Every structure is written in C-alpha cells, then in structure tokens.
C-alpha cells in the first residue's frame, strides 16, 4: 500500500471511515483467545451478572484493535509512531461500530515529518466508545 504524501495532507483532512460488523458473543470468544485476555467478564454471562453487569461486554482492546486496523489502512504500520486511546463507554453485544479520524496537526520532530490524528469509534447511536490520537510519519 502507499501512504499519503506529507505535502498533500492538510489539517482537517478526514480518513476514510471503517464500518465494522455487529459485535457478537463469538467475536468476544475469539478475541479472548487471540488477545490473551481471558477475563471471564467478557465471555461468561454468569460471571458478568455476578459482577453486577447486565451482560458480557467487549474487551476494550477489541475496538482499539479495530482502530489500529483503520490506522494501518491509511498508512503502513511501520510509519505509526504513537497510538493512544481513552475508553469512554462499554461496548455491548450487538454494537455496530465505526472508526473515524482526521488530521489535526502537521509537525516535524527528530528530523521526521509527522501528522497528528484525532481518532475514535462511535456506535450506530453516535455514542463515543473510545477516542484518542495517533502520530504517523509521512514523507
């Protein structure tokens, strides 16, 4: 894949959105195994209810992995320098998530030209599930 060129990118440019399939119990079971996060609150309904939750819910790292996919669709991941998120709401079973982001700054650091992105995930009701920023190197 080819990354956008630094001189072509403008502050305010939006990255192409990534729409994800509905979160299912199977999604969470697979992610528990693949990610290594076996906390039963994400995969065992009995455990989740005993912990005071109405149902199992997604690992925070699942939407963060989706948002990572979204970023690496825009630039090869070797150009990713920093990626940070804050989790603001639980992602329940059935959620339909969309990743989005935009360029907020162009800068130079350590001899590299970089862009700062504001990124996040919303569900189909518009609730923000996580938001954050990323620094990517562009030439």
């Amino acid at each position, binding site marked *: 894949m080819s990354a956008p060129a630094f001189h072509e990118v403008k502050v305010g440019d939006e990255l192409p959105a990534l729409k*994800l*399939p509905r979160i299912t119990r199977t*999604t969470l079971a*697979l*992610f528990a*195994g*693949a*990610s*290594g*996060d*076996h*906390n*039963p*609150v994400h995969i065992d309904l009995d*455990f*989740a209810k*005993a*912990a*005071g*939750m109405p149902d199992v819910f997604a*690992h*925070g*790292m*699942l939407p*963060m*992995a*989706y948002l*990572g*996919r979204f*970023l*690496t669709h825009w630039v*090869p*991941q*070797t150009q*990713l*320098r*920093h*990626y*940070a*998120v*804050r*989790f603001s709401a*639980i992602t329940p079973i059935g959620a339909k998530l969309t990743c989005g982001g935009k360029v907020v700054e162009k800068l130079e650091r350590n001899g590299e030209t970089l862009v700062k992105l504001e990124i996040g995930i919303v569900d189909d009701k518009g609730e923000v599930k996580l938001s*954050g920023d990323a620094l990517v190197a562009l030439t």
Partner: protein
Amino acid sequence: MIDTKHIGRQLATTFFEVEKGRLRFFAKATGETRPEYIDEAAAKAAGYRSLPVPPTFLMGADLDAGIMFTLLDELSVPIGNILHGEQSFTYHAQVCAGDVLKVESRIADIYHKKGGALEFIVKDSVITDQNGVKVMEARSVIVARNPKEKSA
C-alpha cells in the same frame, strides 16, 4: 483502597515469543484479512521480515504472562470489577513473527476518584527484542469499580 506504597514497584520481567499461528488467530479475531497479516510470503513482499505484529497485539505479552491479573489478585481487586481506562503505545521498531521479546513493567501510579468509588492503576512497560533493541513502550490505565465506596 489500594495501598499507594506499590507506586514505583517493578513487576516481574517476562518473555514473549511472537508466533505466526497466534498472529493469524489475532487477525481472524479482529477481522483483519489483508494478506501481509496472514501470509508470510505476502508479508515479505510488503517489506516485513515475517508476519508483522499489528499495533495492539503486544498487550498479549502482558496478558499471557498474567502480569496485570497477578497484580490485581495480589492487591485484592476482583477482576469482575475492572475496566480498561486508557491505553497507549509508542513504537520504536517493527516487531515480527519469530521475535522473542522481554517485557519489563512497573507501577507508575495509583490514585482514586469519586471518594474511592473508582481506583486507578497505571502500569508502564518497556519491550525489548532479542537484539536488545527497545521496540515499544506501553502504558495501561486500569480502573477498579468499588461499588461499596460510592460517595453518599
């Protein structure tokens, strides 16, 4: 309340071997279908040494070793009560299948909000590869919900 004497504490150093099968499983679990994340020949054609580690995959290095869960158990924080508050990664070099990583973690901070109803544990990790190159730094903020401590 979690004792703040643990701030600054160094946690056990652990090792994590990056396996191709695990990377393919992670790709499947996250809906990743691009060939360079699944097929080693495609990864090499894209300029990687082997299958590349996607941006958030190395949380598994902590999770497989049980670093955070062991700590929570020791601090008597029930895992049914925790939420992930924040996560960040700073990348210094691309990690690929076959790499053997060293993970060094420490507790950077412990604090609470809402009269102790929410407690926060901040853990910093430095990940080094088999050549001694620092490849990544990570920060996790874990939130513990304490239903009993809710302010009246």
